[in-house]
């Protein structure tokens, strides 16, 4: 019998393995500081370590890891966007998602269930044909389908014509998927930490030090750190953090709410979205019906829920699925979204040298967690903006080169 096992057996207490290492002391200096321990910040840390061997990295979060939008989102992953730049980017994310549970050796419950965007008007059909063509051209599986096939895919959907907004067609995107959002945080965090990245929860960044136009460190609630490079990945707080470095963003922070029902027997396989009714719905592995809608009508830095959201979102859901009328709702919550004017993210360099930004993810950034982490890590490591990120640069606004994705937003805003 190995001696180690014997000693273990004789020990009075046997603490379980820690999944994440305890929070270390904060050092005075790191090579790279990542502000924001959501999926994006942690993924960037993981790829910095794995792809580029950069491990002198601290991830700082003012709360707990994954307590921001990554832990609040409705976990829909898809690539059926409208612009070539968008489709290409999100398609690479789909590729990464497919192998991610294996790569991270952690079950992310990645579930390809298909994604339908319903069209209730001719104008919507026109946009969907357009999206389907752009998608197919870039090798992304998307097709316009009609009520006979919709009925086969979505039992229980009211397809009658005597409703206010009859369903005329749908953009069907078979690779549309969902993933366990918390697992994504835990897996990236654990695998990054295993390679030496430090995880500092409960560590708020309160200032960014800039000298001669170049970032030199950050002030935190636990002391000042000097560093060579900083990545900010703080979703709804993006303007506040960039403000610490002295520049403004094309971002407006607006809450987005969602809710889930009590668990039901499995009945709904795909994700169903209606842009005209401003709702989307899918059923989780636990049987809970996950329901989301449009962003709140005005900006706020608060995660409060409202009755108006529940009323305004659940009523149209009943137009689609009248039989849900007596189902009880279980939870409702909100996250603060960093909305951009063109519904595309902001990734890349900033006016401050060596300060990189990953923001403007609004209501659509969970699906981009792997690709964004990977490509931002490449930018930080090499100092060169990857081609895939070029269209999403911060300076595109001043250059009047927006990447208009509003037409592919899941629901109207």
């Amino acid at each position, binding site marked *: 019998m190995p001696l180690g096992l014997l000693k273990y057996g004789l020990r009075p207490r046997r603490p379980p393995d820690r999944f994440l290492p305890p929070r270390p002391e904060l050092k005075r200096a790191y090579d790279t500081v990542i502000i924001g321990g959501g999926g994006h910040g942690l993924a960037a840390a993981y790829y910095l370590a794995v792809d580029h061997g950069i491990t002198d990295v601290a991830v700082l979060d003012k709360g707990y890891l994954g307590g921001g939008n990554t832990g609040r989102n409705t976990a829909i992953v898809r690539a059926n966007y409208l612009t070539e730049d968008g489709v290409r980017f999100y398609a690479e994310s789909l590729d990464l998602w497919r192998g991610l549970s294996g790569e991270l050796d952690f079950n992310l419950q990645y579930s390809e269930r298909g994604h339908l965007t319903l069209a209730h008007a001719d104008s919507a059909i026109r946009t969907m044909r357009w999206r389907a063509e752009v998608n197919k051209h870039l090798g992304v599986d998307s097709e316009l389908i009609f009520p006979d096939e919709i009925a086969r895919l979505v039992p229980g959907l009211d397809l009658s014509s005597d409703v206010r907004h009859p369903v005329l067609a749908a953009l069907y995107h078979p690779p549309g998927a969902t993933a366990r959002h918390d697992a994504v945080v835990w897996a990236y965090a654990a695998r990054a930490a295993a390679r030496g990245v430090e995880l500092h929860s409960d560590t708020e960044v309160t200032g960014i030090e800039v000298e001669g136009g170049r970032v030199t460190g950050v002030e935190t609630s636990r002391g000042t750190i000097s560093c060579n490079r900083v990545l900010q990945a703080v979703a709804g707080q993006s303007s*506040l953090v960039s403000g610490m470095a002295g520049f403004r963003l094309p971002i*407006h922070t607006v809450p987005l709410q969602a809710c889930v029902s009590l668990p039901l027997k499995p009945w709904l396989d795909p994700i169903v979205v209606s842009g005209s009714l401003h709702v989307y719905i899918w059923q989780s592995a636990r049987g809970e019906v996950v329901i989301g809608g449009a962003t709140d009508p*005005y900006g706020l830095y*608060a995660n409060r829920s409202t009755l108006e959201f529940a009323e305004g979102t659940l009523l149209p859901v009943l137009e689609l699925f009248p039989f849900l009328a007596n189902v009880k709702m279980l939870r409702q919550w909100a996250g603060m979204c960093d909305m951009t*004017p063109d519904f595309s993210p902001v990734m890349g360099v900033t006016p401050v040298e060596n300060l990189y930004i990953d923001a403007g993810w609004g209501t659509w950034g969970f699906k981009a967690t792997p690709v964004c982490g990977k490509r931002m890590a490449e930018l930080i490591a090499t100092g060169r903006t990857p081609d895939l990120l070029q269209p999403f640069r911060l300076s595109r*606004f*001043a*250059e009047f080169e927006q990447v208009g994705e509003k037409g592919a937003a899941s629901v109207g805003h």
Partner: protein
Amino acid sequence: MKIMPCPLNGPRPIQEFTCGGEVVATPNPDRADAETWADYLFLHHNAAGIVREWWYHVPTSFWFIADRNTVTDEIVRTFLPRELFRPDAQRDQP
């Protein structure tokens, strides 16, 4: 229900209103360079705290200004634009 005190219509549910964004000076479109114009169009202060915004009461097509706390979701004060803008003032002078 969130209540907005409208200077014309009195207290009303906030669903009757649309937020028109931060009150900022409009650059003169004939003289502004592209950078100034892009800044005006796209960049926001997006402050956490008390902000000054345009608001619009939809049933009356009525624009007014509100000071609002974006952290506590409280409306501090609402008032008529003429407190800030003279009726015939130049566009780029608030």
